[in-house]
């Protein structure tokens, strides 16, 4: 399911949502992150790492960026176990907990998604620019893009996992 979701989001980002950038480089969202961040916190660290690597590879193939998303995806996949530990509730994750708005709450979701998005966008910024003198001017657009990605992910969560869709009778 995770793989299918990831594939779908990569295709959507590459072919449909690619140009959804309201303020140009200041708001360049990474839609596929939503699928990656849906990997359950209880999953094995290797699964998280491989998911990040796979998402980056798929994005590179679809977008023709040759390695930039691979590096950023691997970095995020490697950091996901630590991020999950960092944002874990005091009593730990329940077996049935999923990283969604309903299960984890809005503050957890926004904090976790924003941290992951900031990491991903910063790594992407470094590998896109490479030269030290280009990095200062790219930091702010990366941070705003990370915030925009977070917003998009939350909207997707609300759309896909809305309480109305779960309980249509209410």
């Amino acid at each position: 399911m995770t793989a299918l979701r990831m594939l779908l989001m990569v295709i959507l980002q590459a072919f449909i949502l690619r140009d959804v950038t309201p303020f140009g480089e200041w708001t360049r969202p990474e839609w596929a992150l939503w699928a990656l961040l849906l990997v359950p916190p209880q999953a094995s660290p290797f699964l998280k790492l491989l998911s990040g690597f796979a998402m980056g590879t798929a994005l590179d193939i679809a977008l023709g960026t040759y390695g930039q998303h691979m590096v950023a995806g691997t970095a995020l996949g490697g950091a996901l176990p630590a991020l999950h530990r960092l944002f874990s509730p005091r009593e730990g994750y329940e077996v049935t907990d999923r990283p969604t708005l309903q299960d984890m709450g809005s503050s957890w979701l926004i904090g976790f998604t924003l941290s992951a998005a900031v990491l991903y966008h910063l790594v992407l910024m470094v590998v896109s620019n490479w030269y030290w003198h280009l990095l200062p001017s790219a930091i702010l657009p990366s941070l705003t893009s990370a915030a925009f990605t977070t917003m998009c992910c939350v909207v997707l969560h609300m759309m896909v996992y809305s309480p109305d869709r779960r309980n249509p009778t209410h």
Partner: protein
Amino acid sequence: MRNLWLLLQRNAFTIAFIALMAVSVSVLLRNNGAARSSWFQKTGAVSSMVEAQRHEWSNYLHLSEQNVQLAAENAALRSQLLSMNMADTWREDTLLGWSVRSGMLIKGPDGKPHTLSLATPGRTEGITQGMGVLAGGAAFGTVEEVGEGHSRILTLLHSGTAWSCRIGKGGPVASLGWDGRDINVLQLNDVPRHVQATPGDSVFTSGYDLRFPPNVLLGTVIDSERKPGADFMKVSVASAVDFNATQHLEFIIHRADSERVVLAQPELQP
């Protein structure tokens, strides 16, 4: 082996992360010109620095081998040089027939008037009593005793010796000795009063003592002292050899040395 396996198991996630990151970065470098250029610029600087450092260490570690090699090469060249007639053109003169072999000083003079020095090699490598010894191309002393692997050297810094030499290549012969005071200053005695000895003039061996070929540098004139009414004057000479720093020596021998020694013996003279 088992510990290695446990270590790998314990760090499997880190290893997997590094491996995947390496794959990603290699894909990036292969396909992104700016990244590749920046990467090679940075790693090139680092690798050249590392290589320069490694080269420096390697040179330092091989210094002693190179020194030995250079000393042997020096000895061969000096053999060749001494076998040439230097007064004329650079033409080899087989009649001069000097040969040189390299050696190492293992105990140098300590500044006392009667100190002897020790050096390698000894008899096993063809060193014989009476050979002249050079250091850096200048006269150092002569072989006094020979053991199997070591030789005892009587240096210029021995107050009981006298060395036949001359000021300049054409000056009259005089004897050089040491008064046992200053390790860097030798004394040239019995220099005829009329000889011009100005500071900076070179003092060479005369070749008459059969230990050294003629015109081997001994030192340079520092000062001359003329006493009123005396026929001879005393000249102070700065030794060309730094006795405190000498390490490599060259033993010189004439190819017809035994014949020369026999003919020079007083009982054979008329």
